């Protein structure tokens, strides 16, 4: 057990830091500028780092990936674009795609020449994703797709989508699903922004009417889509493990500074015993998340996959983030709710989920998403209970079997 970084990692971190100092843009005003920044990150070797070299990756170690993300968070660097392409679609193609698919798609994800989204959730298939109803009918040389997807992040800018659709309605629920790459720029695709409680629209709804998928764009075999989706959802490879904590720590320091300035009963909130207790608790929780990230990275460096253990990590940090943001709101009062006209002292100048400089209000509202997306906290607890603790499965109507 040695929690010091190796000399090699320290040197690499320094190199990344220097690069960021020289190359980080002051401001990003539109998607084209973000794509330009994305491209510079790629050319420097900082995107798709863990992907195989023959497809544009670096074959880098998990720790190097974590360090790049961490240094970007530390510098408040804008995020690259094509997040779903980098985080979900690319790794899925790396693992499950054919060589032709890998050559065709991977490099263009890294260069952001082609933008991607993920077409998984449906209005009636959220936590119960396998209940999805979008149909893909085999027409001999291609598939025809009909159905509706929701919670498609980046749907409005995507050129391509990673799609889960039902190919065999007669098969048991989890067996009749297949996985495809679908062209988003075709007449049968209708993409509508979904306005969230944040007021922004990072997500879309996608309506597919007789949309076409070529045969060569099927990923894996027919009926294997559920298994592919399960691995896809598990692609939290620890890449953002440290960066997440660094962002929290930066936000926390902003909060302490605000608590020094704001007053309660005639004295700074920072001198208030109750507030100090709450701040101390959140810092302890934050540090425990950091230690957990180091454990995850240790596993990844040894070539082990956290598996269902990833559910513990995700449950822990997403629930922490909500507690943290609730405290921030408590200390900041109405300042914490401002989306515009925020005095400089109460701005939150760190990169938020969409890569923009944000407000506490946005970060607070966004914290409600983390315990729902990519498997809600309740689903994570089911996974932990069943797969780690080996608890008996609950009796569920859909486990009785039978076609849908």
């Amino acid at each position, binding site marked *: 057990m040695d929690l010091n970084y190796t000399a090699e990692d320290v040197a690499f971190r320094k190199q990344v830091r220097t690069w960021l100092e020289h190359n980080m843009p002051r401001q990003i005003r539109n998607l084209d500028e973000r794509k330009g920044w994305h491209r510079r990150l790629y050319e420097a070797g900082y995107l798709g780092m863990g992907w195989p070299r023959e497809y544009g990756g670096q074959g880098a170690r998990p720790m190097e990936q974590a360090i790049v993300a961490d240094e970007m968070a530390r510098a408040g660097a804008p995020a690259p674009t094509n997040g779903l392409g980098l985080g979900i679609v690319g790794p899925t193609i790396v693992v499950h795609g054919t060589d032709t698919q890998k050559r065709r798609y991977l490099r263009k994800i890294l260069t952001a020449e082609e933008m991607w989204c993920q077409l998984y959730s449906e209005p009636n298939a959220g936590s119960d994703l396998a209940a999805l109803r979008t149909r893909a009918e085999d027409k001999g040389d291609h598939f025809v797709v009909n159905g509706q997807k929701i919670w498609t992040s980046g749907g409005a800018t995507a050129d391509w989508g990673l799609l889960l659709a039902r190919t065999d309605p007669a098969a048991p629920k989890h067996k009749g699903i297949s996985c495809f790459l679908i062209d988003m720029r075709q007449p049968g695709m209708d993409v509508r922004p979904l306005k969230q409680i944040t007021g922004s629209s990072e997500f879309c709804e996608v309506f597919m009417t007789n949309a076409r998928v070529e045969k060569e764009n099927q990923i894996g075999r027919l009926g294997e889509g559920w298994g592919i989706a399960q691995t896809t959802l598990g692609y939290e490879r620890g890449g953002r493990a440290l960066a997440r904590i660094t962002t929290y720590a930066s936000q926390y*320091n902003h909060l302490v500074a605000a608590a020094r300035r704001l007053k309660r009963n005639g004295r700074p909130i920072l001198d208030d015993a109750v507030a100090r207790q709450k701040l101390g608790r959140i810092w302890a929780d934050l540090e425990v998340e950091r230690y957990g990230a180091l454990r995850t990275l240790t596993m990844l460096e040894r070539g082990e996959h956290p598996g269902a253990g990833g559910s513990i990590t995700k449950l822990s940090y997403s629930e922490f983030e909500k507690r943290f943001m609730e405290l921030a709101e408590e200390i900041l009062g109405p300042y914490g709710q401002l989306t515009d006209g925020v005095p400089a002292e109460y701005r939150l100048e760190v990169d938020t989920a969409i890569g923009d400089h944000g407000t506490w209000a946005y970060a607070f509202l966004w914290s409600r998403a983390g315990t729902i997306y990519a498997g809600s906290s309740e689903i994570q607890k089911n996974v932990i209970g069943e797969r780690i603790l080996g608890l008996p499965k609950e009796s569920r109507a859909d486990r009785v079997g039978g076609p849908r």
Partner: protein
Amino acid sequence: MNFSFSEDQVLLKNSVRAALDEQCKPAHVRAMMDDATGYREALWGEMAKLGWLGLPFAEEQGGAGLGLVELCLVLEEMGRAAYPGPYFASVVLGGLGLQLGGSAAQKEKWLPAIASGQARASAALLEDALDWDPASTTATATKAGDGWRLSGVKRFVPWAHVADVVLVPARAPEGVSLFLVDPRAAGVTVTPMVGIDLANRWSEMRLGDVAVPADALVGSPGGAGSVLDALLRRAAVGASAEMLGAARRCLEMSVGYVKVREQFGQLIGSFQAIRHRCAEMLLEVENSHSAVYYAAWALTAGAEDAAMAASVCKSYVSESARKVCGDAIQVHGGIGFTWEYDLHLYFKRAKALEPLYGDAAHHRELIVRGQVSHSNK
């Protein structure tokens, strides 16, 4: 960067587990709860033979020269077994206290004796007001000839009734100082304080003008503060390791129980209300593991954030162990509330350690103080 145990550390953990599984079964714990001294010399001698009693001491003092990570591995297993005996008192409180502040002669005299099991040590860190800040010490030390005379009342002194030497802070004209006191010396009265964890013994220690020689002073007069701060950090992390072990045992028992207990015609582990609670318990146990071993490493390595890590650890584990052990009783239902069922042994061990060496509130305040002074720099 490597947050996993070495092969040697895993071997140590396994051997401690095997020894305690064999010699510290719940029946042994229960027998010791009713025992006058509260522990067995046989197991104590075995622990000496296995090298546990000298684990953190230098090899020339009969120790194994290991760090806090290894010590915490042992303590975690002891919590898991609700081990009854003066291990923590002797090795952590007395032993590490002497290692941190003792002179060469004091270490030479006591550490080999502690390591061999011939002597048992402890430390008297609490008084009536329960303040962990060494500066609040009210017991007094006055110069008398070459030596000193000590007066005052110490409370919750672990295993003082079997100790050969106790580290006692007392206020001298120069400030708070640390002394070695023989609890059987004239003027010392040791009275049992019986808590809910009967496998863990406390005493009140009254010092009525007790004469101690000049060489009983540990460090310099007025110099106890830094030694006690360092000792308290190690004790806080060590106690957290023991609480982690107790919590892990409570989780294991709960998971085992809900896989066999049926209600409404189904195994209760299949109900989400139970399963989710068990998942939360595992989350807390895993996070506590991170907190304990990070802090143990940081203190051993002298990392910059070692003091913070100790406070992070004790504040986190004090609450997580409370939740996990409490939830264990809840998922067991009625049987978890019976004396006959073993769950309360571990529940009580975690509870007993929760306020010691600073509770969650104490350490949260230390965390914020650390941050405020850091950001003022």
